[in-house]
């Protein structure tokens, strides 16, 4: 499955790097998600929309984003992280 996840934060550097590494760790447990492409970006990049299937964001995203958005702040604080990861998985499958 060639789905695309776009991880968004303020700079495309700091918190999104943390989130990407957590999502990679989690998805590596599922062989069916082997082909998933994870890219990083900053919130300014999606002002004109995105071609990703799921957006995972540590900050508010503009309403130009029409695909499912998952709030990743719990991945940063550590608690409630599991639910967020499951939400991402569900969004990938398209539920």
């Amino acid at each position, binding site marked *: 499955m060639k789905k695309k996840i776009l991880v968004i934060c303020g*700079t495309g550097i700091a918190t999104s*790097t943390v989130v990407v*590494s957590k999502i990679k760790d989690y998805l590596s447990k599922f062989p069916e998600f082997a082909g998933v492409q994870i890219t990083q970006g900053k919130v*300014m990049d999606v002002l004109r929309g995105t071609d990703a299937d799921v957006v995972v964001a540590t900050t508010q995203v503009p309403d130009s984003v029409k695909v499912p958005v998952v709030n990743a702040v*719990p991945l940063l604080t550590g608690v409630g992280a599991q639910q967020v990861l499951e939400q991402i998985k569900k969004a990938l499958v398209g539920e």
Partner: protein
Amino acid sequence: MVVIHYIVSLGPSVVLPIIIFLLGLALRLSPGQAFRAGVIIGVGFVGINLVIGLLAGSVGPAAQDMVKASGIHLTDLDVGWPSTAAIAYGASVGALAIPVGLLVDIAMILAGLTMTLDIDLWNYWHIAFIGAIVTIVTGNNYGAGIFAEIIAMMVFLVLADWSQPWVKQYYGYDNISFPHGTSAPYFVIALLLDKVFNAIPGFRDLDASPETLRKRFGIFGDTMIIGLILGLLIGILAHESVQGILTLGITVAAIMVILPRMVAILMEGLIPIAESAAKFLQSRFPGRTLYIGMDTAILIGAPTTIAASVVLVPITLGLAFILPGNHTLPFVDLATIPFILALMTPVFRGNLVRTIVGGAIAMIPTLYVSTALSPVMTIAARQVGFKFPAHAANITSLVDGGDYFPLLMREAAGYTGFIGLAIIFIGVIVMAWLVRRYVTRPRGGGEAVAGEAYAQSS
């Protein structure tokens, strides 16, 4: 003493990995993880050094030519927060900022003065930066540098507590606060400006919609394009050849894209350290009512902040060109404006007109301060081995380099040494007590417990 001198002389790309490795072991990472974390940080440091070399080697001489050709005296290059952070962590007291910051945080909570648990380890570089410049202006007094780091950490914690009610009201984050060195000082400026704005008839009722501005100025959100335009502009003002102008345009665009990537490498090394430090901190305070201190990166997606930031890019550049006595050429940190605004927006309750006007007013001292701090920053950069041609230019940054708080610390330490720092130290304790008394006074009930905070809201 000889051993210490030898280790310091190895330079930060070697010393940082060693310190991070030891810190990782102390925070119970496996030796393999700690070793890898240390090496990656060294690698990121080398990468940043390469890009700063490129920046100073291309834009530096062009800025000099610009002075000669058009009399526009903007020769203090804004190398941006990525470089400033690297300089800060690379300084001799820099890496100490992490253990010092952690201990100050624990001490402040135990003393009941603040209630923010700062797990955003990356941004401890702000206190490292203040430590580094104070060390330099006191003639390499490491004691003064570390004392300055302690004070800086306290200030950010107090500001985080103070701004939390605004964060809660505007962004809806109940148990998160923002002891972030870039954003927190501007919260105070916004409080003052908001009072002034309220007193101006007519103006106080103005607002605008973020949507239209964001679309019209969207181009300024693309840092690569800003780089290109800026490079071309400097090339033209410097009366370069057509080839020179075009080359400068692409080079500057490249710097804007590559520099943040290098910082991402540095971050990758810091992640395991930050996570084990967060666990360490949270395990100290089971059952305490605390805020979790985070990076304002999670706030800057607010529509008002984004819209105001894109408008402030050309405004900031314009100000740099017209303000007499300003020598700062804004540049990499044009992309960091959202962070400067992150804690101003909630004070202005998301009012776009106030955020733009307030942001523009705040940029004036920011530009002057960054000009004033550029000599000491240039010394700091050279001390950590960043190479750029002599006499080419000075470096500075809008973020931290343009912040009044580091300037205050430099003045206090430079002119009065420990006495000035001690006065600020006492002042901060009084401020912490006032904030505790009037802002975060425990009310019982409504607040959650650190560690459980997110289990509840997610």
